[in-house]
């Protein structure tokens, strides 16, 4: 138990360092950006009609003339005190904006995450067990094709097929247009999330499937499977009793590692489907010079991805007898 606590403590220390590094990197990139927040958000024409005094007020609002170091340290000081600041574009606290957006995105990402994991594992096990057969070639070909397809392009193709030609799914947004927010049903939300979730799951699935396939082949060529066969176990029993058991550990790692890919993919996919999620907010914040919001989104995303990997590490301790028993005896 002490061991487990120490392990978790170290991980959290590392997470703090990581978040610091990620926020600094995002900040530096933002300061190096040639975009002038005033021109982007107010517009050249409007700026021309404003008085010097008004412009000075706007410059102060957007923090244009403040030295970068002081801006970053100021932001960091607030964050340590638990205040993520106020979004310059939405004029709402950053936590509130992220909370809303995350709620939309979480649906999408959770669905994509579960779907890519289930689909990837199933296809990987199937392909590995039937190596060299037609099923394997089909699955492998499909996975390679998908993993070499950019997510936004796939999104566009699916959009064309299902929304434009077949007209069975909506072309964008998270809820129907012209409907009162209170009367939006869960069905409406799911209906609008189908295409983005599907696209998003396709970005994570091939990696999981191909890795699982490799592991499955390793397992089936192992000494212990040979011995199981020598002891008269059927192919079915070998696959269920030994195959799945030994594929489970790498599957856990893959399942949690794919979170980062899904986060990355969501930025593009939400853009294509005009889906008001975290990814879209990140793009808006980045292009609009909304520093508090962008840093907030960056830190929250990094924390979620890191937590995913942390959960995978902790699950290993529960699932892998070598770690579980080894730690118990140490």
């Amino acid at each position, binding site marked *: 138990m002490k061991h487990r606590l120490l392990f978790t403590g170290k991980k959290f220390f590392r997470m703090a360092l990581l978040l610091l590094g990620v926020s600094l990197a995002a900040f530096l990139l933002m300061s190096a950006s040639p975009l002038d927040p005033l021109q982007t958000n107010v517009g050249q024409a409007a700026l021309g009609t404003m008085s010097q005094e008004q412009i000075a007020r706007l410059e102060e609002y957007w923090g244009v003339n403040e030295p970068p170091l002081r801006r970053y340290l100021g932001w960091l000081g607030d964050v340590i005190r638990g205040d993520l600041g106020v979004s310059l574009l939405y004029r709402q606290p950053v936590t509130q904006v992220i909370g809303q957006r995350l709620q939309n995105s979480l649906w999408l990402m959770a669905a994509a995450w579960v779907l890519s994991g289930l689909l990837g594992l199933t296809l990987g096990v199937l392909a590995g067990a039937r190596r060299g057969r037609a099923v394997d070639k089909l699955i492998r070909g499909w996975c390679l094709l998908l993993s070499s397809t950019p997510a936004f392009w796939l999104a566009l193709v699916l959009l064309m097929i299902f929304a434009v030609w077949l007209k069975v799914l909506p072309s964008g947004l998270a809820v129907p247009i012209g409907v009162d927010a209170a009367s939006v049903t869960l069905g409406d939300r799911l209906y609008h999330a189908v295409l983005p979730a599907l696209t998003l799951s396709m970005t994570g699935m091939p990696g999981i499937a191909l890795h699982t396939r490799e592991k499955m082949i390793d397992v089936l060529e192992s*000494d212990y499977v040979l011995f199981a066969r*020598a*002891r008269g176990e059927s192919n079915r029993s070998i696959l269920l009793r030994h195959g799945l058991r030994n594929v489970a550990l790498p599957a856990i790692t893959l399942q949690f590692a794919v979170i980062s890919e899904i986060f990355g993919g969501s930025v593009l996919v939400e853009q294509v489907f005009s889906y008001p999620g975290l990814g879209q907010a990140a793009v808006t914040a980045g292009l609009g010079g909304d520093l508090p919001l962008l840093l907030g989104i960056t830190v929250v995303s990094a924390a979620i991805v890191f937590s995913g990997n942390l959960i995978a590490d902790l699950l290993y301790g529960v699932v892998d007898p070598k770690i579980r028993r080894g730690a118990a005896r140490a």
Partner: protein
Amino acid sequence: MQPVLEVRDLSISFTQYQGGTRRRVLPVIRRLSLTVTAGEVVAVVGSSGSGKSLLAHGILGILPYNSQMEGELIYQGQPLTPQRAARLRGREIALVPQGVTYLDPLMQVGPQLRRGRRDAGARAESRAVLERYGLGRETEERYPFELSGGMARRVLIASAALQAPKLLIADEPTPGLDARAAGRILGHFRELAQEGAGVLLITHDLELALTIAHRVAVFYAGETVEEAFAADFPAGRLRHPYTQALWNALPGNGFTPISGTQPGPGEEGPGCPFAPRCPRRAADCAGDIPLIEAAGGRVRCLHPEGGKTP
């Protein structure tokens, strides 16, 4: 008495692709013959890389997909077809593999022994067989990585003994064990033979094999070169020059090495594969060499030991 297992002129070869396109067939075992009767320990002795494990896999019908097997396998008087082998393995025919890597690393010993059965009878059986080999109840809950080398071997033997096999194939069951532990493990095989099983012991260690085997089949470059009684070795009644060289190479018998190396699969030319290293070779050794009866055993040599020097 009818032998439990008869192997006649068994060949096992692999299909390989060279440079991706050129197909070639690599013979690993050629013309292997031996018999095992009930209650007897027959050792198959050959150096590493001579394809000994494939013999075990061939009998059990678990060769890899890119291999072909020819020749005759007769089990209890009936041909041992792949279908029959699939039915018999894990029941009448048992394998004792080399070491702990043959146990599923993520499954406890008990469930592995019981092969998916969960009833009380299966539990009692697995507990009894572990006890027979000096392994306590707690062994059932252990994972393979928690077993010592000797314990792992005993678990593997227990898994075979659990089936009460008529034919037991032990594939190099002792590497990595000190002489005393190896002796104890081999003693278990002798015990199973006394209970009526035919035991086929595949090993590279002639000295160890002679401590428990009744008969020894010597394997060279994929061929049986001699079938001898264990007693023939110390008595100097050996037939094949290679067997004699193997015996002479033992630390207790002069430690005399011979020059040259065993040809690998596909490297042997026509005729006797041992001829290039043989002190007794003659011009006719380049032709076909049949397995002939000699002094109660069998030998694949035209000029066996004890005959006239050519």
